[in-house]
């Protein structure tokens, strides 16, 4: 199966106002096969959002790409001009963000904002045709009464409906890849369930990338998962493999630290220390200062990825002997 998205040795620095540089993303490599759903999980500051923004080439001004490539359908996105990116965004790859309130323009109608996305990539279509497509989209994302709702403004929509609108805008031009960055985090659980269900139905045939801190969502909707910590990929593989047989101490810790409905103990496992900020990233394995199993070598050089089996690899010195 061909990969729709492939990151190869992607490195990114952040530069502050004084010109100091800090490495954020360290050698990010992963791929997303066509038609699959990939979850990227990690805590705040691990670089998962900036990874997804790199696909859209919407990086913040402080970001400096220092190496590697990002291939979408075999073409290197980092070599595209801004003009070419205009064509790619929305048509080949689209994104749904966390906060639908700040993503929708409060003074334009819902219908106008969805039609805008269609018009951008189909400039020759008639207004009537675009309106029909807008109505069909609203219908598809489960907004009742599309004919009436098309004239509404964002403040007349509830949080769940706004997120449905964002999804409608994202799928307006049937992009090959849809990226959802914490798309359900701001929603109530029952609404989150509705939106996840909608995304699963839309998924048929398309490729998805879910950026989330919620391990439960990844387990339910994704085929593959990449676990990030402080700008490094620590573990990756099929969801069943990684969640049932976590190999990296960080993944193990995360899964144990989560209170689940099945958990009946009185004390949760906790990972000592705090999530580091980019100024405090250490050399070698960045998880080493918090790791129970850290050896001297861990803080000296970065562990190479060890292949555990076809669907599972981990970057940790504990697994060096099983490296193929």
């Amino acid at each position: 199966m061909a990969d729709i998205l492939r990151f190869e040795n992607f490195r990114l620095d952040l530069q502050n106002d004084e010109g100091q540089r800090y490495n954020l993303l360290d050698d990010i490599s992963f791929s997303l096969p066509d038609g699959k759903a990939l979850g990227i999980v990690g805590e705040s500051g691990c670089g998962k959002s900036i990874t997804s923004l790199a696909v859209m080439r919407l990086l913040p001004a402080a970001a400096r790409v220092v190496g590697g490539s990002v291939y979408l359908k075999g073409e290197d996105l980092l070599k595209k001009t801004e003009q070419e990116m205009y064509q790619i965004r929305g048509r080949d790859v689209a994104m749904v963000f966390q906060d639908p309130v700040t993503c929708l323009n409060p003074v334009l109608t819902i219908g106008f904002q969805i039609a805008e996305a269609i018009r951008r990539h189909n400039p020759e279509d008639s207004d009537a045709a675009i309106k029909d497509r807008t109505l069909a989209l609203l219908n598809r994302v489960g907004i009742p009464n599309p004919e009436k709702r098309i004239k509404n403004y964002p403040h007349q929509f509830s949080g769940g409906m706004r997120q449905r609108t964002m999804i409608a805008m994202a799928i307006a031009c049937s992009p090959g890849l849809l990226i959802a960055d914490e798309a359900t985090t701001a929603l109530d659980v029952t609404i989150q369930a509705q939106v996840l269900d909608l995304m699963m139905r839309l998924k048929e045939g398309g490729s998805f990338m879910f950026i989330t801190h919620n391990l439960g969502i990844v387990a339910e909707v994704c085929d593959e998962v990449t676990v990030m910590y402080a700008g490094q990929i620590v573990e990756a593989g099929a969801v069943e493999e990684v969640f049932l047989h976590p190999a990296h101490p960080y993944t193990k810790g995360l899964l144990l630290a989560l209170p689940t409905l099945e958990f009946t103990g009185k004390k949760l496992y906790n990972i000592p220390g705090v999530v580091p900020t980019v100024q405090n990233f250490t050399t070698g394995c960045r998880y080493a200062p918090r790791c129970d199993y850290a050896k001297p070598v861990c803080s000296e050089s970065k562990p190479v990825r060890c292949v555990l089996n076809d669907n599972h690899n981990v970057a940790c010195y504990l697994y060096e002997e099983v490296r193929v």
Partner: protein
Amino acid sequence: MMDENVLLRVRALTKHFNINNSWFSKPLLLHAVDDMNFDLIRGQTLGVVGESGSGKSTLARLLLKLIPATSGEVTYRGQNILPLKERQSNFLRRDMQMIFQDPYASLDPRIRIGDSIAEPLWEHKLYRTKDEVLERVGTMLERVGLQREMVHRFPHEFSGGQHQRINIARALVMNPRLIICDEAVSSLDVSVQAQVLNLFNQLKEEFDLTYIFISHDLSVVKFVSDTIIVMYLGEMMEQAPAGELFTETAHPYTKALISAIPNPNPTVKKKRILLEGDIPGAVNLPSGCRFCSRCYMAQSDCESTHPELREISPDHWVRCHYSKAGIGRGD
């Protein structure tokens, strides 16, 4: 239940907000909290869950007398606290403390954390000298897992988890009996959330605390609570001992909430109950059950008759015409 074990008794507590700003037209009432009844047992943790708009934060503010109640009674250690004047309720400000959701917004960025924590001590004149206060603040910092030397630092020098620890220290410094945590761990990362949750449990033993733990996250509430109240549109839908709520789920809304939690175990493929539509506004409420517009079990009389709370098994209350104990079992 022995009476002296009840720290807080809430009876028919109601809060309606008038959201019509005009002076002359009829008031438009938003039913934020309606007819809440529960007993809070000393040394226990009461969990309150519900989605946004269910009235759980309003409930917390009512119990602390931060906003006046419309009607009802809140009895704290045998005394109804709602009619008390601000001066008379000074002792409540010592005994009850609150920890808020946003750890950054609850500390003044320009005040050293030691001074933030010491502020209530000065206000209530609990100590006379600076040294005594400093000693007390330092002890509290150590109890929540920070260092005594940190008193001179400013909030920006701390991470989110540490901020929340400072907020906990500030709550504890008054030696309270009751701490209300309003979404206190919601903004924390998983690994830090686990640290803070463990800290809550540990401090409960150490200081003989009683908690009211408000959250939208059922798994977190289940971990810390002895009893759980499920709220929807200002009403209590179900109240049960924490374990029983999940094994003997009685209310269709609770059942839907539980099924909506994404499970991190990929082998468990459960059937999800998808509720239709959104939480409606708490204005112009239906005369019948408030949940019936989204309920998958609703019958015709749910729309017309308002269900009362029923005790279906000891300490397990539910507000539904049709629920029986244990509808949540087996699926």
